[in-house]
């Protein structure tokens, strides 16, 4: 289907089902139960899952295929957001031109950054991208925000003010990003018994975009271009002596992943029309690296899983505080209850980074292929249990690009 082989089609359908029915999957607990705080099916978080999924898919096209580790991709995300908000300020709240411009501007910036940074490889490339991104952060945070020329609105962040021109924005419409009249923040809540499921326009826009760019990523992975990128990661010497010039291939991969980041930034602004410089900081660039590695570098679905995993932790684990813990362990004798809460306390709430760090280390050490490898191992284990014990070990064909 759609020019994909059977395995890839199954994967695409699986992702389609997961994203389309996410409001159900992510809200498994009744809304008034004690477990309701583990529900992740509220619009704001679901949008973030999908947007960071797009960001990580794009990052993986560069890092997963070519092995070039960029530490500056958040810069493109930020640039995309600024571009989108400027469209809102000057022209219209319709998200289509905003998202298109976000992608174009991010792609232009990534041509510049890629052209310079790709002169080096390995750690030097990473440092160059990091330096570039920090420069862009500084520009956004202070340099380009002064009374004479205010492009980014510095610390406050760029947002839409009532006195902005908004040339094509009719007064009859609400002041919020929309897709031809469908407002991004409009949510329909379906109540089924004690359960509540939220269906949000913005989320579904992001989900459809994710499906489109996920499909594009599969095509890139299976194309001759994708094979060349994997060849670059594998052996640049041989590539050079096979008459191929690695530079334009890596630059193209860099620009594609930059455009994906710009798309994510544009969508972020479309969901909430403001853009701040902190979106471009190096920690944000590091986060997408974590997502990709945690999910499974060089796999198709890995980055999406990694993005979901980290965003879930960030939003759910960080909400567990001491009061919640005491509630959970109330059945224990008093002294023991306090002790258990004392033990768990550093790992939840503001300490969620600690839990994430430990998990990240465990994954890197025991599952170098990320969550995808974990899934594959579980799959194999179930299969081998299902088979009769006297069948000998079978040789597995080499896994290509998966």
């Amino acid at each position, binding site marked *: 289907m759609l*020019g994909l082989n059977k395995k890839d089609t199954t994967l695409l359908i699986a992702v389609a089902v997961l994203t389309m029915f996410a409001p159900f999957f992510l809200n498994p607990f009744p809304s008034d139960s004690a477990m309701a705080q583990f529900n992740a099916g509220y619009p704001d978080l679901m949008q973030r899952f999908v947007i960071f999924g797009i960001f990580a898919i794009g990052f993986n096209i560069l890092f997963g295929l070519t092995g070039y580790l960029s530490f500056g991709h958040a810069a493109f995300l930020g640039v995309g957001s600024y571009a989108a908000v400027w469209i809102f300020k000057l022209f219209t709240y319709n998200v289509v031109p905003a998202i298109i411009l976000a992608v174009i501007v991010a792609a232009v910036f990534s041509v510049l950054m890629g052209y310079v940074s790709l002169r080096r490889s390995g750690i030097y490339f990473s440092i160059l991208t990091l330096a570039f991104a920090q420069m862009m952060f500084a520009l956004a945070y202070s340099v380009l925000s002064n009374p004479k020329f205010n492009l980014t609105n510095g610390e406050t962040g760029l947002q839409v003010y009532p006195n902005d021109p908004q040339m094509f924005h009719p007064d009859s419409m609400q002041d919020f990003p929309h897709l031809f009249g469908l407002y991004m923040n409009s949510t329909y809540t379906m109540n089924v018994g004690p359960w509540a499921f939220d269906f949000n326009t913005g989320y579904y826009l992001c989900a459809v975009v994710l499906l489109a760019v996920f499909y594009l990523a599969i*095509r*890139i992975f*299976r*194309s*001759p*271009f*994708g*094979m*060349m990128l*994997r*060849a670059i*990661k*594998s*052996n640049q*010497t*041989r*590539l*050079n*002596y*096979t*008459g*191929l*010039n690695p530079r*334009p*291939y890596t630059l*193209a991969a860099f620009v*594609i992943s930059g455009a994906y980041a710009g798309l994510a930034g544009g969508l972020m602004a479309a969901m909430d029309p403001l853009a701040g410089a902190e979106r471009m900081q190096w920690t944000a660039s590091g986060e997408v690296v974590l997502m990709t590695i945690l999910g499974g570098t060089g796999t198709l679905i890995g980055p999406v899983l990694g993005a979901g995993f980290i965003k879930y932790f960030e939003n759910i684990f960080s909400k567990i505080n001491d009061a919640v813990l005491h509630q959970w362990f109330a059945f224990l004798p008093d002294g023991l209850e306090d002790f258990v809460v004392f033990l768990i306390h550093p790992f939840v709430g503001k300490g969620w980074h600690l839990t994430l760090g430990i998990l990240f280390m465990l994954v890197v050490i025991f599952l170098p292929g990320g969550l995808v490898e974990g899934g594959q191992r579980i799959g194999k284990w179930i299969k081998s249990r299902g088979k009769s014990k006297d069948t000998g070990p079978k040789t597995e*064909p*080499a896994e*290509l690009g998966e």
Partner: protein
Amino acid sequence: MGILEVKDVGKRFGGLQALGDVNLSVKENSVHAIIGPNGAGKSTLLNCLVGKLIPDTGSVMFDGQSVLGRTPYEINQMGISRVFQTPEIFGDLSVMENMMIPCFAKRDGSFRMHAIENMMSEKDIVEKAEAMLVDMNMADKRDMHAASMSRGDKRRLEIGMCLAQEPRLLLLDEPTAGMARADTNNTIDLLKQISDERDITIAIIEHDMHVVFSLAQRITVLAQGTPLVEDDPENIKGHPKVREAYLGESA
């Protein structure tokens, strides 16, 4: 005029004159061996031919065109392919993919953006790569991880990848170094077959005299960065200068 003409090539690394006035002429469709003791400058010379090093003096002409100042991939696109001392292949890719890449390089040149097409739907490339695998006697290894093969098979694959580009000149840098006797003999047979069946010139750097005398039609002896003799194999064997270079003054 040979297909490859090296004129007065010199290369200096700091205080070391690695090459001094090397002259070499490789005849089209011949097998030419370059031999010499350790440190004679064989590898330096090879690196000057493929664009990895730029000589300080002299000229290198391939088929009437200068290769100097060109990058390795440009020189490769002119028709010079190189086999390395330790096989350089794409270890993370399958054997079939390894073979497809040079086919793409031959058809599409040094860069082409084909990011949406499925690589397996490129019928001409797939057919050519499969035929090449059959030629190399590796059809059964088509879906193997290239890195998991034996060294002999990696060497075979590397030679096959070079041939898939239909080069006019094939350069081999000690292709049998570190190989077992059986693998060495297989490689000799393969190279003989290639030079008999194809329209190709082979230049080979080699240490192993058994390999050299089984293959070469012409031999250049290099010592301390300068060519001592260039002659046919029969005349090289007993040449006093060659014996001196290899075995020292007293011999």
